[in-house]
C-alpha cells in the first residue's frame, strides 16, 4: 500500500481538533446561576461519567472522520499483482510468427508449443485469440494448424491488427508474441509498432541467439535472350557470418550449368558472375544456389526465369517524304542488342496490305492519312492488346486529328521550347497540342504542353509523342537521351522487360484480365491452379504468397514464367535490441518484463474513493450522534 499524495497526511494533525473539543473545551463551562443545586447533588457526578461514555462515541466518530478525510486526500492505493494469476477478464492474443525465417531449426514448432502452453494457463473467463502473422496477419482457429509461410514477418502489420482488435474486443489485451525477434521485422518508423492502450506485450523469443547465415541475396539476369552469350550475376551475402569460401552453382531446369567458388567477406557480400551462358530456347527455370550449405539452407537458392527467343519485330510507318525518322529510330534500337527489337520501316503507301498482328508494336510517324484497310487493322490490333506509338508532326496537324485515336490536334510553334525533366538541352520548335481528357501525360514541355501521353484502348495501349523524330521539329534525335528513350519505349511497347521478372513473396502480379471472356491461367509453384475459374476472368492482380515459379498464360497466348523468392530480409537473423523491445512494450502500458516476469505484473488500485465514501458515512454518523447528545431540549415545561 502507498499514497499518491502523501503530503495530505499532514492533515492528520487536525485530529487535535476533536481532542480539544472533547477534552479541553468542555471544562471551560460558563457559570450559570440557578436557584438551587439541591437536585444536582452526588448523582450529578455519575451523570457526567455517563455522558463522557457517550461523548467518547462522538469523539471517536469525529476523530475517525478527520483521519479518513486525510487519508482520502492522500489517495492511498494498493499494489496488486496482475497477469496470468490475477486481474480481471482479458483477451489473450497468441501471435505466432510463421514467416520464412521460422523454418530454421524448428522455430515454428517451438513457437506453437509455447503458445499452446500459454493457452492452457488461461483462466476460464479469459478470451484467447490466436494469430499467425508474416507479412499479413491471419486469425487462426487452431494453433497446431499454423503452417510456415514464405513471407517476411512484419511487426507493423501485427501492431496494426492489434490496434483494430482492441476496440472490437472491449477487453484489455495481453499479447503473447512467439517469434524469432528479427531486427528486420521492425518497420522504419517505430510509431508503426505502437500497441493499443492498455495492451501488455509479453515476448516469447524462440531463437536461441544470433545465427550466422549465408544466402544468395539477388540474381541479375536478362529476362529474355536472343543469342548465346548472356550474363548472369549473383550476389552472395553473409549475415552475421564469418568470412568463408562458398561454392555457387548456376542451374537451368534442374541441370547445373556452371559452378564457381566465391570468397564471402565477414558479414559482407560477394558477387559471382556466370558469363556467356547459353540457355535453351523457350522459358527456363533458373536457379543460383550455394552448394556448401549452412544452418538455414532454405535461403541458399535464388530463383529466376530466363526466356530464349528470336528478336521481336516492330512496324514503322512513315511519310514517304520523311525517311529520317526511321533512320534515327532504327539506329537507336541497334545501339543495344539487348533491346531485341528489329524495325521494319515502310512508307504509308507500302502499308496497304500489311497485317500488324505479327509485330510487337507499330509506330505511326507523322502520317496524315493511312490506307483504310490498314487503319482499321491497326485499330483492331490495338484493341486486342497491341501497342502503338504515334508521333505528331506537320502532316498530322494538317489533318487535324490523331490517327486511330481521333483526338483533335492543334499545331503549336515555339522559338525554342525545352522539355522538362531528364531531357535537358533538347529544344522543340514545333509540337502538336492534343486535346485529350483520357490520356495520361507522361512528360511535358516547359510551358506545360503535353509531350508524351499514354492511353489505353481496349486491351492495348497507345503512346502519343507530340512531336517528330526527324530532327526538324526538334533536335531530340541528336541528343544522347534519345537512344535510351527509344530503347526503353520499344521494350515497354514490345512487352520485353530488360531484367528478369523476379518477384518477392507478398508482391502482386498484374494480370490485366479486363476483357470479357479473356482468362488468365496461373499455375502455382506446385503446379496447381492459383486462380479459380471466376478469378481467372475477373482478377486484376494475384498476390504471390509462396516462393517458386508461377507459370502465367495470358489471353493473348503469351506465356511467362515468374520466379518468386522469399524476402531476403528473412535471412538476417540479427535480433531486435533489448532496448528496442523494452520501448515497444512501453507503447502499450508501463514496462512489462519478459515471459517469466510478466506473470507477476504490478498494478496500482486507488482507494481514495472508498475513503471518501467512508468519510461521508462518518459525517452522517457524527451528525446523528451530535444531534442526539447536544441538541437543545425544547419540550414545554
Amino acid at each position: 500500500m502507498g499514497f499518491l499524495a502523501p503530503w495530505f497526511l499532514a492533515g492528520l494533525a487536525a485530529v487535535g481538533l476533536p481532542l480539544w473539543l472533547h477534552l479541553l473545551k468542555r471544562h471551560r463551562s460558563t457559570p450559570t446561576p440557578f436557584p438551587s443545586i439541591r437536585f444536582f447533588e452526588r448523582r450529578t457526578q455519575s451523570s457526567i461519567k455517563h455522558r463522557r461514555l457517550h461523548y467518547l462515541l462522538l469523539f471517536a466518530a469525529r476523530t475517525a472522520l478527520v483521519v479518513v478525510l486525510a487519508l482520502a486526500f492522500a489517495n492511498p492505493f494498493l499494489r496488486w499483482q496482475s497477469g496470468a494469476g490475477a486481474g480481471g477478464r482479458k483477451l489473450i492474443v497468441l501471435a505466432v510468427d510463421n514467416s520464412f525465417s521460422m523454418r530454421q531449426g524448428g522455430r515454428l514448432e517451438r513457437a506453437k508449443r509455447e503458445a499452446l502452453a500459454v493457452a492452457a494457463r488461461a483462466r476460464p473467463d479469459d478470451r484467447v485469440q490466436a494469430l499467425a502473422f508474416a507479412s499479413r496477419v491471419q486469425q487462426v482457429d487452431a494453433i497446431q494448424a499454423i503452417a510456415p509461410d514464405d513471407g517476411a514477418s512484419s511487426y507493423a502489420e501485427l501492431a496494426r491488427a492489434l490496434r483494430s482488435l482492441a476496440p472490437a474486443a472491449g477487453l484489455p489485451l495481453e499479447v503473447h508474441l512467439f517469434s524469432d525477434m528479427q531486427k528486420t521485422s521492425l518497420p522504419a518508423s517505430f510509431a508503426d509498432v505502437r500497441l493499443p492502450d492498455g495492451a501488455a506485450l509479453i515476448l516469447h523469443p524462440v531463437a536461441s541467439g544470433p545465427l550466422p547465415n549465408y544466402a544468395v541475396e539477388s540474381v541479375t539476369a536478362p529476362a529474355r535472350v536472343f543469342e548465346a552469350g548472356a550474363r548472369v550475376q549473383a550476389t552472395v551475402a553473409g549475415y552475421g557470418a564469418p568470412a568463408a569460401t562458398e561454392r555457387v552453382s548456376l542451374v537451368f531446369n534442374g541441370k547445373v550449368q556452371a559452378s564457381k567458388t566465391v570468397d564471402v567477406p565477414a558479414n559482407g557480400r560477394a558477387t559471382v558472375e556466370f558469363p556467356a551462358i547459353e540457355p535453351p530456347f523457350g522459358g527456363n527455370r533458373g536457379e543460383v544456389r550455394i552448394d556448401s550449405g549452412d544452418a538455414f539452407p532454405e535461403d541458399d537458392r535464388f530463383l529466376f526465369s530466363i526466356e530464349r527467343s528470336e528478336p521481336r519485330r516492330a512496324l514503322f510507318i512513315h511519310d514517304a517524304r520523311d525517311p529520317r525518322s526511321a533512320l534515327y529510330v532504327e539506329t537507336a534500337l541497334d545501339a543495344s542488342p539487348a533491346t531485341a527489337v528489329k524495325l521494319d520501316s515502310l512508307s504509308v503507301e507500302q502499308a496497304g496490305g500489311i497485317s500488324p498482328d505479327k509485330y510487337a508494336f507499330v509506330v505511326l510517324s507523322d502520317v496524315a492519312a493511312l490506307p483504310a484497310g490498314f487503319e482499321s487493322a491497326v485499330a483492331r490490333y490495338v484493341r486486342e492488346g497491341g501497342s502503338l506509338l504515334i508521333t505528331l508532326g506537320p502532316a498530322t496537324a494538317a489533318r487535324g486529328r490523331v490517327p486511330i485515336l481521333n483526338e483533335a490536334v492543334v499545331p503549336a510553334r515555339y522559338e525554342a521550347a525545352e522539355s522538362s525533366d531528364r531531357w535537358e538541352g533538347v529544344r522543340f520548335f514545333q509540337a502538336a497540342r492534343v486535346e485529350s481528357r483520357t490520356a495520361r501525360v507522361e512528360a511535358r514541355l516547359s510551358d506545360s504542353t503535353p509531350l508524351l501521353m499514354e492511353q489505353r484502348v481496349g486491351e492495348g495501349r497507345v503512346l502519343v509523342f507530340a512531336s517528330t523524330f526527324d530532327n526538324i521539329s526538334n533536335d531530340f534525335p541528336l541528343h544522347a537521351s534519345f537512344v535510351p528513350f527509344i530503347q526503353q519505349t520499344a521494350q515497354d511497347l514490345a512487352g520485353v522487360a530488360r531484367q528478369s521478372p523476379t518477384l518477392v513473396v507478398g508482391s502482386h502480379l498484374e494480370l490485366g484480365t479486363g476483357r470479357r471472356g479473356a482468362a488468365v491461367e496461373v499455375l502455382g509453384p506446385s503446379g496447381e491452379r492459383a486462380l479459380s475459374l471466376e478469378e481467372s476472368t475477373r482478377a486484376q492482380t494475384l498476390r504471390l504468397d509462396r516462393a517458386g515459379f508461377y507459370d502465367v498464360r495470358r489471353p493473348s497466348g503469351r506465356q511467362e514464367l515468374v520466379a518468386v523468392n522469399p524476402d531476403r530480409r528473412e535471412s538476417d537473423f540479427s535480433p531486435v535490441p533489448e532496448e528496442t523491445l523494452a520501448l515497444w512494450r512501453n507503447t502499450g502500458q508501463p514496462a512489462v518484463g519478459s515471459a517469466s516476469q510478466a506473470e507477476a505484473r504490478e498494478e496500482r488500485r486507488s482507494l481514495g474513493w472508498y475513503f471518501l465514501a467512508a468519510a461521508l458515512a462518518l459525517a452522517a454518523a457524527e451528525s446523528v450522534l451530535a444531534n442526539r447528545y447536544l441538541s437543545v431540549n425544547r419540550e414545554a415545561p
Partner: protein
Amino acid sequence: MLQRFLDPRVLAGISGLDLVAKTVVQGFISGLHRSPDFGFSQEFAEYRAYTQGDDLRHVDWNVFARTERCYLKRYRGETNTQLMVLLDASASMGYASQSVTKLDYARYLAASLCYLANQQRDVAGLIVFDDEVRDYVAPSSRHGQIFRLLHAIEKAESGSRTDFAKPFIHFQQFLKRHGLVAVISDFYEDPDKVIRTMQPLRFRGNEVILFHILDPREIAPGFREPALVVDLESRESLEVSPEYVRHEYRDKMDAHIAALRDGAMGAGMDYFLMNTGRPLDEGLREYLTVRQGRM
C-alpha cells in the same frame, strides 16, 4: 383581555405595586361576574323568621308592611377573616429566566391578595422572610393598611438562603388569631420539613395555602450543552450535563413537587404550584376558593 392584563410580563411594565394589584384584582373580579358559583361579602344571604330576642334593627320593615310578618335579613360579608401573607424573599427567589423574577411574581401575587382582602374588608397582614423575619406588617383593618402592606411588599428584596424553621418560631407569635395564611415561596427545602413547620399554623385553626413559585426553567432547564450551575443561595457550583437535566433532574423536581403537594394535602393545607410564566388569576382563584370555604 383578562389574560393580557394578568400576564406577569405585562404587569412588570406597570409602575407602582398598588396599581398592579388594582389592575389584577379589578380585572379578575370583572371576570368573575360571569360566574354564578362565586359570591362574597356584603351580599344578601337569606330571610329568617323573627324569634324572640332578635335585634329589631335587622327586621325588614318593608316585608312586614306587605305581609305583616317579621323577617330578619341575613347578610354575608360580615365575617372578619384575617389574611396573613408570608412572603419568601430568599436569594433563590431572585432567579429569572425571563423579564419577571420569581420574587416579582411573588410580590404581584402578595399585593393582589392583600388588595383583594382589603376590598372585602378582611384583615390582612404580611411577613417577609428568608432565614430571618425581614419585615412584618401586623394584621389590621384600619384605613391605610393596604398602603402599608403594599409598601412592605415593594421593598422586599431577595436576601440570603431560605430557612423555614427559624422564622416560623416568630410567626407563631404573630399569628395569634386564626385566619387564612398564604405562604408564597419556592420551597427549596425538604417537603417534610416544610409541612412540619407549617403544621402548627394549621393546628391553630388557620387555613394554610402554599403558593409554590417556580420559574419555567426551574421545572425544565433546557441546557444545550454541559453547564456549570451556581447555587444562588449557597454559591456552590456543579457541572451538569444536558441529558441529566433532561431526565433525572426532571424526575427529582417532579418528585419534590409531588411530595410537597401530598404533604400539604395530608396536613389539611392547600397547595398551589405557580409557574411564573403563567397568569396570576389562577393564584387568586385558589385564594377565593379557600376563602369561600371559611365563610
